């Protein structure tokens, strides 16, 4: 820097650099709408009636599946190439608070659309405190004193009159590996709820947790599934009543990382259920009546024919193809070193 202004604190951290386009307070924004990712569900059932109670028919919906989080959609009026930096003022803080994180930032005409995923549905909603470079802020002020810097091209880069972003805390945090550890189900009962331990990182103690806002985009995700199949064949209910059935199911959840202020000195990350689904295929066959009568009269001579009609227990052609629904199976991505910044709502309210 041949000329300009560089201000550092006692620790050597840069506070103001006239060559850098500092972010300034753009405004406080509430969501325009809220949504959830629709469940992906379906299945087919064929000839499963009257199989003597042998054929399992339970849990063909979303029974036992964990609840999904919700997605808040914001429209931030800040036209320009640089996306706004949006801090989340969470609905609550502490060890019972839901986790939240930004999952999408995209330009939409003269606005930027921000989507915030929250791990649980709440009556209150997170609020965004948004920041942008001076060149993208149209605020005006009557204040005539303060500090304003320019870069070598003469473009304003910092102006103390427009509430520059202040970051008392910054760091990085790493999400858990899997969202659900241990068994993911038993028989037709799925168990895919988030049970990973929260991961915490501590920071310099602040006076009031409820005053803290944070910027930390959700980057980590995990995807886990449970598959179960059963098949059976044989005789039921007496002479020559032959049956065969097979059922194949796949359940899955896609999890996104999200965050919370756990205390005045602790920031936490865990997963929330972002999307989920369940597909199944269930088929059965049976023979009774005339076939049984023939079998009785001819001492089983028609067994061969019955075997052609009633296949034995088999998973053939009933598998549900997992690859059509899941981005990947039973793993996680992007969990390490997720940067975060913490500021205070009271700086800007």
């Amino acid at each position, binding site marked *: 820097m041949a000329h300009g202004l560089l201000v550092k604190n006692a620790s050597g951290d840069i506070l103001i650099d006239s060559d850098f386009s500092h972010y300034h307070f753009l405004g406080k924004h509430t969501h325009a709408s809220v949504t959830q990712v629709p469940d992906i569900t379906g299945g087919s059932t064929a000839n499963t009636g009257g199989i003597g109670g*042998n054929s399992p028919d339970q849990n063909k919906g979303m029974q036992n599946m964990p609840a999904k989080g919700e997605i808040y959609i914001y429209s931030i009026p800040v036209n320009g190439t640089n996306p706004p930096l949006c801090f989340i003022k969470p609905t609550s803080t502490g060890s019972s608070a839901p986790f939240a994180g930004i999952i999408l930032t995209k330009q939409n005409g003269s606005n930027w659309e921000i989507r915030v995923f929250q791990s649980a549905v709440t009556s209150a909603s997170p609020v965004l405190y948004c920041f942008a470079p001076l060149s993208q802020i149209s605020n005006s002020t009557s204040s005539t004193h303060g500090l304003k810097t320019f870069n070598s091209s003469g473009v304003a880069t910092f102006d103390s009159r427009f509430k520059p972003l202040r970051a008392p805390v910054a760091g990085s945090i790493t999400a858990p*590996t*899997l969202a659900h*550890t241990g*068994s*993911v*189900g*038993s*028989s037709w009962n799925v168990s895919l709820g988030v049970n990973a331990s929260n991961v915490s990182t501590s920071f310099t103690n602040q006076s009031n947790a409820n005053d803290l806002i944070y910027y930390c985009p959700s980057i980590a995700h995990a995807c*886990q*599934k*449970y*598959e*179960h*199949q*059963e*098949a*059976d*064949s*044989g*005789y*039921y*209910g*007496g*002479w*020559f009543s032959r049956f065969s059935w097979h059922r194949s199911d796949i359940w899955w959840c896609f999890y996104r990382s999200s965050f919370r202020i756990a205390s005045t000195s602790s920031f936490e990350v865990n997963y929330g259920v972002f999307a989920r689904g369940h597909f199944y295929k269930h088929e059965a066959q049976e023979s009774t009546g005339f076939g049984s009568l023939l079998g009785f009269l001819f*001492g*089983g001579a028609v*067994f061969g024919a019955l075997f052609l009609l009633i296949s*034995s*227990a*088999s*998973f053939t052609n009933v598998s549900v193809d997992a690859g059509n629904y899941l981005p990947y*199976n*039973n*793993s*996680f991505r992007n*969990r*390490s070193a997720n940067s975060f910044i913490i500021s205070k709502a009271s700086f800007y309210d």
Partner: protein
Amino acid sequence: MINEHNEIGKWEIVNSELNDELYLITVEATSCEPDFEEVLHNQMHTDGVAHTHRIERSLELLEFDHNPTTAEIQSALDERGYNPVIPR
């Protein structure tokens, strides 16, 4: 021995991944009802005796901090209650 299908109680690894120093092993575990002795099975058919040939199969995701041996995978499945034989 007769069981009217080609399945046997067993497990096999269907996916293995090393991710952030964690070994993620997805296992397909199959359980079956025991086979019938052939003469008995034929007699059951002749006499029309109710009987079944049941198969169950589930996916299990196992986590290890090292590349597991076969015995360690077997042990992990045992802890989750896996039994290759479905009792009649």
